[in-house]
């Protein structure tokens, strides 16, 4: 069976229950999109797209939008791929966005291996699958014989990760003439992810450098790595409150050139995550003080560079969009994992647009070369996305 019956569809007009009843059939029907979806996943995933170098992947997405007969298929000046599937009434504009960029350099072998149960390769889940699902949506809706009343705006967002700081989506929301009613962020994994609120976040780097002709007799100074170690020890001493929940994530550290030379540089990447803007500001202030102190003690040049900042916010647990998403996941036997997000959501929050971020399938080894996504659960993830789209389209997610 390739489409969902008109009788089932007509029941979606009445209530969310009608949509929920239809979802198991949707899950069955979308299996017919398997080859199209997997082909998109492979072809998108094999085009390298490190942040700020997404143009080739964006061009591919644009071509797909054109082939799907979407209106206004184009790339904007920030390099976002955009296309519009016009709705029957066009009263609402629903934005489905998937970030195009990955953490993998263009020099990494992006070959994807396809097995009957899984696809494997760098960035396959984060976020080639999210993009492939977004790009395949027009085909999936046609397959299901679903015509939305709302305009569906599809977007492959550039410059999302790291220093990109959601620049692509922010640009679109700030400059587009299309008023977005609701946003849906699509991530490859994990299925069950349900983010509707964003935590506050500072993301940055601490860069430590010492001159090559360094006076090694000075206090505590045996190169940039040990100086950075001193900084980390002090960061560990920062007292974090239990409530509001807060954490400091030390994400990566790099430094030095080899085995037998004293390191002249070291870089620490971090994120401060907190439910309270005030706490975030306080932690940031303490980190800045630590850096001044260690710098003055060691004479090393230490810089604190914060290049991304998010304010906490989002819709509440009881918002109809969050409720509908949970009920849809329940019907499809997906265990919702509410996780506050630092992803695309915060760009929506800054514009007071209700939004959720969801995952499509289960996977593992995120951001490793052998990143893996499981194929079978994709159809559940896809049914979930269709369910949320329908619920929004029929007005069941509107706040009073």
């Amino acid at each position, binding site marked *: 069976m390739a489409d969902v019956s008109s009788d089932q569809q007509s029941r979606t007009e009445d209530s969310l229950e009608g949509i929920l009843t239809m979802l198991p059939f949707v899950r069955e029907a979308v299996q017919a999109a398997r*080859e199209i979806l997997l082909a998109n996943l492979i072809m998108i995933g094999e085009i390298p797209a490190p942040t700020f170098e997404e143009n080739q992947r964006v061009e591919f997405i644009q071509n797909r939008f054109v082939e799907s007969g979407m209106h206004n298929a184009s790339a904007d000046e920030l390099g976002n791929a955009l296309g519009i599937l016009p709705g029957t009434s066009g009263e609402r504009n629903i934005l489905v966005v998937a970030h195009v960029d990955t953490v993998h350099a263009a020099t990494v072998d992006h070959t994807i291996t396809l097995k009957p149960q899984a696809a494997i390769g760098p960035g396959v889940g984060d976020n080639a699958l999210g993009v492939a699902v977004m790009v395949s949506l027009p085909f999936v809706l046609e397959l299901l014989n679903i015509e939305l009343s709302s305009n569906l705006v599809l977007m492959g967002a550039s410059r999302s990760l790291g220093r990109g700081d959601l620049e692509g989506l922010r640009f679109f929301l700030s400059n587009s003439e299309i008023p977005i009613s609701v946003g849906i962020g699509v991530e490859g994994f994990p299925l069950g992810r349900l983010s509707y609120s964003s935590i506050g976040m500072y993301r940055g780097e601490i860069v430590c450098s010492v001159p090559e002709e360094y006076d090694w007799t000075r206090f505590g100074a045996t190169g940039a790595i040990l100086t950075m170690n001193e900084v980390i020890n002090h960061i560990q001493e920062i007292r974090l409150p239990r409530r509001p929940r807060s954490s400091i994530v030390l994400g990566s550290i790099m430094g030095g050139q080899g085995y037998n030379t004293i390191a002249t540089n070291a870089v620490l990447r971090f994120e401060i995550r907190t439910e309270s803007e005030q706490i975030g500001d306080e932690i940031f202030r303490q980190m800045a003080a630590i850096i001044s102190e260690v710098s003055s003690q060691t004479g090393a040049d230490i810089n604190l560079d914060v290049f991304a900042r998010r304010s906490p916010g989002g819709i509440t647990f009881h918002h109809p969009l969050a409720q509908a998403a949970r009920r849809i996941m329940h019907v499809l036997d997906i265990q919702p994992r509410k996780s506050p997000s630092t992803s695309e959501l915060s760009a929506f929050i800054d514009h007071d647009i209700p939004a959720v971020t969801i995952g499509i399938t289960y996977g593992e080894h995120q951001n490793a070369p052998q990143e893996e996504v499981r194929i079978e659960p994709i159809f559940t993830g896809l049914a979930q996305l269709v369910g949320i789209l329908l619920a929004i389209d029929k007005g069941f997610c509107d706040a009073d």
Partner: protein
Amino acid sequence: MLIDSWLGTNTFHHSEFWDLNALVKEKEKRQIKISLCIPTLNEEKTIGKEIVIFSSELMQRYPLLDEIAVIDSDSSDQTREIAASFGAQVFQSRDILPAYGEKRGKGENLWKAIYQLDGDILVYIDADIKNIHPRFVYGLVAPLIYRPEIQYVKAFYDRPLASSQGTRPSGGGRVTEILIRPLFSLFFPELTALIQPLSGEYAVRRRVLDKIPFPIGYGVETSHLIDVYHRCGLEAIAQTDLDRRVHRNQHTRDLGKMAFGILQTFLKRVEALGIVGNLPELSTTLRQFQVSNNVFEEIPLNIVEEERPPMIEIPEYTKKHKVS
């Protein structure tokens, strides 16, 4: 036909055929049926991806291909299961024309595909391509669709034409550059214009394919080129640049076996065509050497390049395909 003019008229870049809607329209107008054959032997790592890409892009999205078939030589891994799970027709080579027995070699699968598949054009794609893309098929079949006089299109792999600057080697493989090109230069100078005569990807019209013999081993590609050239001339051959192919690299020792097999086939063809006469009986033993504790040891390898006759000579074929 001068090589220079042939390079100008019969050498293509896949990007010339980007408009798949136009290509499908032309195919339908000319009522051409196209079959894709993927010969396999233990290709479980790459076969799934090839099937998904071709069936999604060139059957569902753009109906360029009429059938996709895997013809397998008794793989001991999951090749057949994976190919079938992604929707390909899967055949065991030994089950096709069983009365004619079973021979080991890629050429055997290619030969049996002529009987098994129905297309007016057969396109052969190796199964070990890591960076598979629809261009591998449409880049090869498009010249046959648009140009009725072309019978045989061969792939070659190079950087995009638009970014090429200055002079550089044309980039054939090692066996091509140290064996095939010198041989072609001696006996068939016009065939040297083929950049990669040994590439395993090509598309051919049935009416030509069923009239040429099939070496079943290493020599099948070389033999094809010589026979098509001899029957139809250089103007019937074309080549398409497919940009880049990522695949397994072979060891020099394996390339030696390949060169030995090709050389056997080559000599048989030039003798059969009367270009050289009365060759002595050729040995089928390749002698390679290794050193073990400073002692040289001979490793003799028996490599016999068997040959299947033109398919048109097989009665079952003429009956099934209604050709005389």
